[in-house]
């Protein structure tokens, strides 16, 4: 049994303009010790998926499917039982460390709150734990810094505090939603190192959401590529990087600058489709260089490709075997 198993997760938001189908039929699993990468462009449903797992979606969200945590469907739990998971058995860190901490409380107070919410211990003991957590994420002079306010910390330090907070109760699962996007490059590397070290020490499962394919390549074992609310490719990092079986992924890979590659940076032309009143057919068909008639009529299933553990959602998977697919986008832009 996996630590976390998400099955056919669908999330939609009723709005004034119509129902936004933010996540459709997403399934994946994460084990202790795994790092699952999720990539995809803005609005593809990465955050909504992770918020659904954490139980942080607004009440207006309609959620179906299953989120099994150690075999228990946590979507079906009462609020109170659900709260016992959040922050205790699973923690989350967010994109913007500058605004993720409450400005009016000290770092120590906020860490203690995380500890005391799930453990019946004294304030003093919680504070000691806070100091210990700060040391764990590599904050120097942690016994002194614990009394500082968030604004006295830099962005990178604040993100470390967020990691410490998520780890406060030794969860088995950590969700990191673009943990480095808002930070500059050197700090990014330090944060990723911290995450890697913590993962190695504690053996937790991590879901790492990012725009940055380099980050996924460095840290993950498996990855999901999301597009317009659904998973379009699922496989090991190597499989997906070297042999993408879906044109969108190929396009994404083409967009990473590679040393020695000739030509300019490729970009996938066009924009993501609206998630309201989704049209039938492949959601990528409006931008796909390989589009054929059937793509516009039926939506492809997420099915195994020539590599059994590598799934892709495309009618023309076979046509991508052995082709440098990113070149197609290059030709497109050149031609």
């Amino acid at each position, binding site marked *: 049994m996996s630590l976390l198993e998400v099955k056919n997760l669908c999330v939609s938001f009723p709005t004034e303009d119509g129902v936004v189908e933010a996540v459709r039929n997403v399934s994946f699993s994460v084990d202790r010790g795994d790092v699952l990468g999720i990539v995809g462009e803005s609005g593809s449903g990465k955050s909504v998926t992770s918020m659904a797992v954490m139980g942080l979606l607004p009440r207006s969200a309609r959620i179906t499917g299953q989120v099994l945590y150690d075999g228990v469907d946590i979507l079906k739990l009462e609020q*109170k039982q659900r709260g016992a998971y959040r922050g205790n058995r699973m923690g989350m860190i967010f994109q913007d460390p500058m605004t993720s901490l409450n400005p009016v409380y000290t770092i120590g107070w906020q860490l203690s709150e995380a500890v005391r919410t799930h453990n019946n211990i004294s304030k003093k003991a919680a504070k000691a734990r806070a100091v210990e957590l700060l040391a764990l994420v590599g904050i120097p002079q942690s016994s002194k810094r614990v009394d500082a306010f968030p604004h006295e910390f830099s962005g990178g330090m604040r993100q470390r505090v967020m990691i410490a907070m*998520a780890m406060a109760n030794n969860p088995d699962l950590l969700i990191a939603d673009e943990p480095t996007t808002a930070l500059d490059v050197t700090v990014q590397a330090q944060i990723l190192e911290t995450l890697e070290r913590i993962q190695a020490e504690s053996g937790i499962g991590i879901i790492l959401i990012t725009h940055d394919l380099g980050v996924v390549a460095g840290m993950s074992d498996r990855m999901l590529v999301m597009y317009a609310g659904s998973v379009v490719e699922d496989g090991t990092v190597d499989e997906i990087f070297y042999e993408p079986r879906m044109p969108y992924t190929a396009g994404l890979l083409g967009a990473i600058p590679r040393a020695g590659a000739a030509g300019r940076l490729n970009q996938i032309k066009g924009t993501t489709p609206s998630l309201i009143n989704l049209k039938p057919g492949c959601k990528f068909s409006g931008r796909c260089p390989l589009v054929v008639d059937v793509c516009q009529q039926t939506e492809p299933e997420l099915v195994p490709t020539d590599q059994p553990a590598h799934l892709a959602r495309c009618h023309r998977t076979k046509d991508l075997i052995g082709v440098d697919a990113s070149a197609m986008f290059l030709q497109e832009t050149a031609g």
Partner: protein
Amino acid sequence: MLQFIARRLLITIPILFLASIITFLLVAKLGIPQQLENAMSKPNASPAAIRSLRNQFELDTPLFTRYTNWISHFVRGDFGLDGQRTNVRSDIWRAIQVTLRLLVFAQIMSVLLGIAVGLVSAIRQYTAFDYITTGAAFLFFSIPTAVLAGFLKVYGIVEFNRWARHPTMSQAVLVALLVIGALCGLALTKNRLRFSDRPQPKKLLLGVSAGIGIALGFIIVFKLGWDGNIYRKRNPKPLIATIGQASDRPPAEFFSRMLDYFWHLLGPSLTLILVGFAGYSRYMRASMLDTLSSDYVRTARSKGVSEGKVIFKHAFRNALIPLTTAVALDFGALLSGAIITERIFSWKGMGTFFSEALNLREPKPLMAFVMITAVMVVLFNVVADVLYARLDPRIRLD
């Protein structure tokens, strides 16, 4: 902190000084005092009387000397005499007491009401409660105070007093009250408030009994005349006063005197509370919506903190910061009185003091009024800054 306060207070001295010069000039340019004008327009005005009045108002002294005379007395606490040769200081002190009685009460009530209503309508955004309070706030905010006060006085209080003289209630009204009470109780206990995630046990029972309690309270007070009749047996006047800040001869006994003050306070303070609450509730609602959708509130939720604690310890605590500053500034403006409301309910507070002094073009009372209100505004500006720094650790005072 102390240093900051000292420095801020020091800067206020030249500001107040400048303000005093400007207002002194403006007051001098208002024209000759009404009293002098009256004397001069009499057909048989004696030149001696006019001259003595001109002397009294120092009209023939150069402006500069007049100013230095005035300010040298003023800073020593001598506010001078008005045209009737009464002491301006004791006059204005009386007006201040009256105004404070009205405005401090009204201000505190409107802040509390505004915070409570703003808080709940932010938590329950786009519910009936939110729409109703939003509508009410816009109504009270946009309606001119004079209209609101007049309406309350004529259609609210006067009508109510007439009814309270012979309080009767038909069976139908009684039943309606019971039902409304029960509904209110239900609404209060329904778990829509989202303060807590816990389902509330025995909601219905609790709601209905709370409602019946509210309705019974109503019946006891008004149908059986628990308060109204007993009070009126000793006192034939209407229950809720519409004129003045106290009875002409207020009862000597402490409790009765307070009650007398209270019935006089009700009308004007209700006006001010409705207007003030409208502003504060909108402000609080916006502020609260802002913090509720903030990243740190999401972080708190992700820690598993209960919804009640998320709302009060995280969202509410931060939403109070801007509100506190605004309230502190408003308290500074309090002493200028509520001119319109005071006039409609015939209170002799600062508002009335000012408008009378202005009508009579009396320099001493006008200057006293302007300087005292200016000092209060400046002081409460410092108070607002200090409070802001206390509440928000990001702000440093130096």
